[in-house]
């Protein structure tokens, strides 16, 4: 016997879909009568119907007024992990290359300078827009700023759905202290879902609320209007096998 068959009711039983439609009063009287007649003689369906009807008396969570929960995460970006180990490698990389390489990364109109690094099979490389990455790669941003700065990284997938990449435990932009080539405190290990993604970098002079920004990015895509006091740039990356 297939163990999953333990989840099935009897062959003549009524599905949850039909019972939910009955409870919601969506179906015609004749069909409703037939379902109730079956339930009257079938303990399994009778109990299930009573269960679904009783559930309607339980209070539901309030429906929020925000466009979307700000804690939504883009699955494409997978796992956020502490950046400690990668930060040390990036520091070595930056110290080695500073001065004899053209400056990479993305400058956000004088407010901050963000750079993206990709670690692939233990090898670290700086990344730019158009970067091809692979499942299992680790992404890490660093930033430079001569004053306190509030940072966030949002993402926009190929279907135009926005989500928050960083910070992953706050609904407001993260405060970064002044410094050069400082790693953001989280890096991300990419999962196996392939595709193209925009990483939208945001640097602000205050701790902006990210929920309305997420809604605006969702609505307008990369042509979005970010708030006064902020700068934004976009890095496109593409994940391939």
């Amino acid at each position, binding site marked *: 016997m297939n*163990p999953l068959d333990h989840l099935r009711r009897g062959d003549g039983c009524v*599905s949850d*879909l039909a019972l939910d439609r009955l409870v919601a009063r969506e179906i015609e009287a004749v069909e409703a009568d037939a379902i109730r007649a079956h339930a009257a003689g079938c303990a399994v369906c009778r109990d299930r119907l009573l269960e679904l009807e009783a559930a309607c008396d339980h209070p539901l969570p309030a429906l929020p007024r925000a466009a979307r929960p700000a804690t939504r995460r883009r699955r494409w970006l997978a796992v956020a992990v502490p950046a400690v180990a990668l930060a040390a490698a990036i520091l070595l990389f930056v110290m080695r290359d500073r001065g004899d390489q053209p400056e990479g990364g993305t400058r956000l109109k004088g407010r901050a300078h963000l750079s993206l690094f990709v670690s692939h099979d233990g090898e670290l490389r700086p990344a730019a827009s158009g970067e091809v990455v692979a499942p299992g790669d680790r992404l890490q941003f660093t930033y430079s700023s001569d004053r306190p700065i509030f940072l966030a990284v949002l993402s926009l997938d190929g279907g135009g759905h926005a989500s928050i990449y960083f910070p992953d435990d706050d609904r407001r932009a993260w405060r970064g202290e002044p410094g050069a080539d400082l790693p953001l405190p989280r890096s991300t290990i990419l999962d196996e879902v392939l595709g193209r993604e925009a990483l939208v970098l945001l640097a602000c002079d205050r701790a902006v609320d990210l929920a309305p920004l997420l809604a605006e990015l969702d609505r307008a895509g990369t042509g979005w209007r970010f708030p006064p006091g902020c700068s934004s740039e976009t890095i496109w990356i593409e994940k391939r096998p």
Partner: protein
Amino acid sequence: MSLDRDSLEQIYRVHGHAVLRRARQILGDEQEAKEILQEVFLGLLDRPEQFKRDSSITTFLYSVTTHMCLNRLRNARNRSRLLDQAGASTGPSSQPARAEALVVLHQLLSGLPQEEAAVAVYYYLDGMTHAEIAALQGCSPRQVGYLLERMHARFAPVVTA
């Protein structure tokens, strides 16, 4: 179709319980289920045109909820966490075979192609017939049977272990 906040609230009151219950069943996690509940209804407020009125609102919400939940299961972080929680979420049960089957199903869902996973949800969790699934998926009942057979063949070593 236009949908104002009051209309959405009314739909939410009537259908929210079913969405929450199904998300809880599929994900095995109360908090994740509540997030899905909000995403489903706020998504409907943002883009009411996604409900084309070619089916009942219950049927539409079944489809949306299923796909949102399956998308979450593809997230590697959720996958590992949900698998850890799957046993706990079923808890000590008076139906140990059913609890075990739920754990197996959760394991399968995270690794199945989306179409097969959706069919598995409708068949095993919602108790739908092939005809009901076919109507919901826009395919033939024969195709539903084929997808279930393929799923069983793909994971025969798992489900018979």
